[in-house]
């Protein structure tokens, strides 16, 4: 991601000049140096913030990798393209979060993605759930999207400028992801008896992993005002799910609740093989570019 070389002009340097583009594409000349609007590179995350960025980056990366398996296998060409684009957006979010997380320890986004072991990952287990059939994928994506949407909506107001910027950027794309999953939930639920049955099974299978998403961790106490307390996102999530389920005439599944533990490195059995496939090339040929 980084293409930076050298250093930006120092603030207050009298020989510096700037040209910016305003919101309507007009051009404005001014003697400014780097303004607060320029966020993205060169900011070092405090350790606790880096840990939190890891949670969100790993959620996005793991889901993107899962979705990649649908490429060329989706039920129709348009879906192949839609899922590929959603995965690409998620990789973008992961790159931002992982670059920021890595800044605390001097590691690059690639080092974060390819050279951490399973127990160093911090994804929640919902994101690790296997694709299953298309209905399972839609059920998982719907839950993931509703959670990320509720989260980013609030994270835009974080006191940490970088987290707020990533959230504000990402939520615009997650809007489309939630819409995609919602349209398919309605279509599968209202389709044939078979599509409806498969969707219900899909939701039943992934629902045990919902609670983990909304569990507070000790890190939340350290990051008041910076991170969003997961438990406070549940009402927004429940409201959105209830509205879609009502329209689809679905019921919220009842059953067991998984123990979770993704935020402390305890993962679902699917994560190991997923990482092995994702990381093998980078590990076998360190420094390879493609």
């Amino acid at each position, binding site marked *: *991601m980084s*293409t*930076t*070389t*050298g*250093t*930006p*002009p*120092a603030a207050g*340097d009298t*020989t*510096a*000049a*700037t*040209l*910016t*583009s305003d*919101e*309507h*594409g007009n*051009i404005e*000349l001014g*003697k400014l*140096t*780097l303004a607060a*609007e*320029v*966020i*993205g*590179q*060169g900011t070092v995350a405090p350790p606790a913030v880096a840990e939190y960025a890891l949670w969100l980056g790993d959620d996005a990366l793991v889901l993107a990798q899962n979705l990649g398996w649908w490429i060329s296998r989706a039920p129709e060409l*348009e879906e192949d*393209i*839609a899922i*590929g*684009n*959603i*995965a*690409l*957006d*998620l*990789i*973008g*979010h992961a*790159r*931002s979060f992982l670059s920021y997380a890595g800044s605390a320890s001097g590691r690059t986004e690639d080092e974060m993605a390819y050279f951490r072991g399973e127990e160093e990952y911090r994804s929640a287990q919902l994101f690790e759930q296997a694709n299953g059939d298309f209905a399972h994928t839609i059920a998982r994506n719907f839950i993931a999207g509703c959670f990320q949407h509720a989260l980013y909506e609030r994270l835009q107001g974080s006191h940490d*400028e*970088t987290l*707020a*910027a990533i959230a*504000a*950027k*990402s*939520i*615009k*794309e997650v*809007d*489309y992801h939630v*819409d*995609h999953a919602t349209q398919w939930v309605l279509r599968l639920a209202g389709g044939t008896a078979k599509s409806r049955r498969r969707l219900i099974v899909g939701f039943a299978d992934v629902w045990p992993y919902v609670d983990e998403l909304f569990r507070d961790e000790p890190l939340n106490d350290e990051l008041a005002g910076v991170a969003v307390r997961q438990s406070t996102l549940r009402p927004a999530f429940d409201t959105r799910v209830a509205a879609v389920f009502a329209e689809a005439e679905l019921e919220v599944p009842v059953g067991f609740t998984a123990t979770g533990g993704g935020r402390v490195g305890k993962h679902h059995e699917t994560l190991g093989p997923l990482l092995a496939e994702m990381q093998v090339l980078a590990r076998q040929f360190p420094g390879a570019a493609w």
Partner: protein
Amino acid sequence: MLDAEMEVAVRRVWDIAATVTDPEIPVLTIEDLGVLRRVDVCGTAVTVTLTPTYSGCPAMDTMSVDVRRALATAGYNDVTVTLALAPAWTTDWISEQGKIKLNEYGIAPPTGHSARGTAGPVSLLLSVKCPRCSSLNTRELSRFGSTSCKALHECRECLEPFDYFKVL
């Protein structure tokens, strides 16, 4: 240097950077797209700030390299290209000229404005005009198209499919 000279120096860099085009939509420059956000000149050091369209847009790396190459060709050797995430890019930043070029290229430009924070993108869909025959009798085939920024539509008059640059 005098202020006026600095302004000229900055303008010169901006104009060179502004010639770089989107590798996937070559009729649009990064200025048309609103991706070129800022130019800073400090002595011989130049910093160009771009903002990504979509988070995962693979064209960003190419655009960064192309900006650097264009400036190197013009004799600027100390060039930094930075990516700024905030404020987040929106299709509202595509210039009027850019929208005309998009349409001529066969991609329907975004209709309406980004409305994050109110209703989301979905409830705001206006009629999309076919870039070939200008009919408004079109329909969406898929909200996700050949690249992140596009949706796939079809015209019910001339029966041709076309790309639509969706509102973000």
